[in-house]
């Protein structure tokens, strides 16, 4: 190893140590506090996942199931709006259709950088608390993600059938409907269902900032340290998410 290499390695090692030091001191890391907190953690987890079980079937449980259904409706509506709004973006951001693809890809990336929870806070202030704000937050964020996926589907189409439609005298709209949509639509549908899967999870949490859905009672019960009822809500969310994931995977396999 040359002398310069040795110096380089030394510098890198020191820098890495410095970063760790900074991180550990910066967050006030304290092993003792973890150990001291363990019994408390055990009690809470027990209340959330064990003691809560006896509430399954109670009126509160059914109330939360209804809240979850409303949450699913939020996720569905948000995803649906986004799926429709995204279609023009998909073509504008696809290099084989748009001369401004780079610009629109950047725009979609920019939209995606807003965390849903932040969007939810903004929309709650704009339109007031409730599911409508949640739907808007989910819809807006979804456009960012779906736009990118849709655009990739558009970029991957086979242009040859479209050449054939051109040769037969088809115009722009006919090429779109006969040549492009049959190729991209199954992908669009599949991505939207996948996005719905994610939206169900976010719809469950945007309630924490007042944007409707099951997150609202969750927040109230957490604030009241009512861990059994928190547990009921978490179990309802987990079971729903598992079912939605499973169904989504099944349907997507059938489509594409």
């Amino acid at each position, binding site marked *: 190893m040359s002398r310069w290499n040795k110096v380089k390695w030394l510098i890198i090692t020191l820098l890495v140590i410095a970063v760790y030091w900074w991180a550990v001191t910066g967050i006030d890391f304290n092993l003792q506090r973890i150990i001291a907190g363990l019994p408390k953690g055990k009690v809470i987890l027990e209340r959330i996942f064990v003691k809560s079980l006896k509430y399954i079937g109670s009126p509160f449980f059914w109330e939360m199931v209804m809240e979850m259904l409303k949450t699913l409706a939020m996720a569905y509506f948000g995803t649906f709006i986004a799926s429709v709004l995204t279609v023009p973006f998909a073509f504008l951001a696809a290099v084989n259709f748009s001369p401004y693809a780079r610009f629109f890809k950047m725009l979609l990336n920019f939209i995606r950088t807003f965390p849903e929870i932040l969007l939810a806070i903004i929309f709650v202030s704009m339109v007031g608390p409730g599911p409508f704000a949640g739907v808007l937050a989910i819809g807006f964020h979804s456009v960012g993600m779906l736009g990118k996926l849709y655009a990739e589907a558009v970029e991957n189409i086979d242009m040859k059938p479209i050449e054939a439609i051109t040769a037969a005298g088809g115009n722009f709209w006919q090429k779109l409907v006969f040549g492009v949509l*049959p190729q991209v639509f199954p992908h669009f549908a599949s991505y939207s269902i996948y996005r719905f899967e994610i939206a169900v999870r976010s719809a469950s949490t945007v309630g924490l900032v007042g944007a409707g859905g099951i997150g609202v009672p969750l927040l109230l019960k957490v604030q009241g340290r009512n861990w059994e009822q928190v547990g009921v809500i978490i179990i309802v969310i987990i079971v729903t998410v598992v079912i939605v994931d499973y169904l989504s995977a099944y349907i997507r396999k059938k489509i594409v």
Partner: protein
Amino acid sequence: MIEFRNVVVVYPNGFKALKGINLHISEGEFVAIIGPSGAGKSTLIRTINGLVRITEGDLIVEGKHVQKLKDNELRLLRRKIGMIFQSFNLVKRMSVLRNVLVGRLGYVSTLKSLFNLFPKEDIEFALSNLEKVGIREKAYVRADQLSGGQQQRVAIARALTQQPDIMLADEPVASLDPPTAKVVMDYLKKFNEELKITTLVNLHDVELARAYARRIIGIRAGEIVFDGKPEELTRDVLIRIYGKWQES
């Protein structure tokens, strides 16, 4: 009638694909175009329906100067020119019938076509063209469920549905096995004779060209180096077209 006068095609990357083509093709002819890969066969037939725009010269198809046509006029010309391709170019996820109806897109109004409101006569005509290529029973099957030979027949039915005066075929049998290739070539020949469709076929198989065409055009490096009857296609001529020739 198709007439090329000093037609030059230069691609945006600077490649000169056609270097001054002069050619006259009369109504009802069956012409095979042969030549090595990259000689300009595809470019030549694609200029006829304006899929490739010419850079210089004059190209007259059905009395129209193709290079001067506006988008709308070009579409009206294209609907009278059927085209089939090496890879069939069907929309795989659509039914056979809907693929064939693509041949009517130049005739029906845009709005009606988008909502799939084809006149009854158009649907019957499309079905009758599937009948002509012997696969009417496949009308409601998805296009990708068909074999290669069947897909090319669907493509021929699509072209026939345009009621074309001219049929362009770009290596129509290059991805088919010999017996299937013969079926497809027989159909092209049949419709050329029965429906008087002027037919231009790009072929890399010289024997097929000899068997089907009454006129063969050999091109090499963007220039016509032979234009004559199959009998005139001697070994010397083939060497002129391909650079070298090995009798099989």
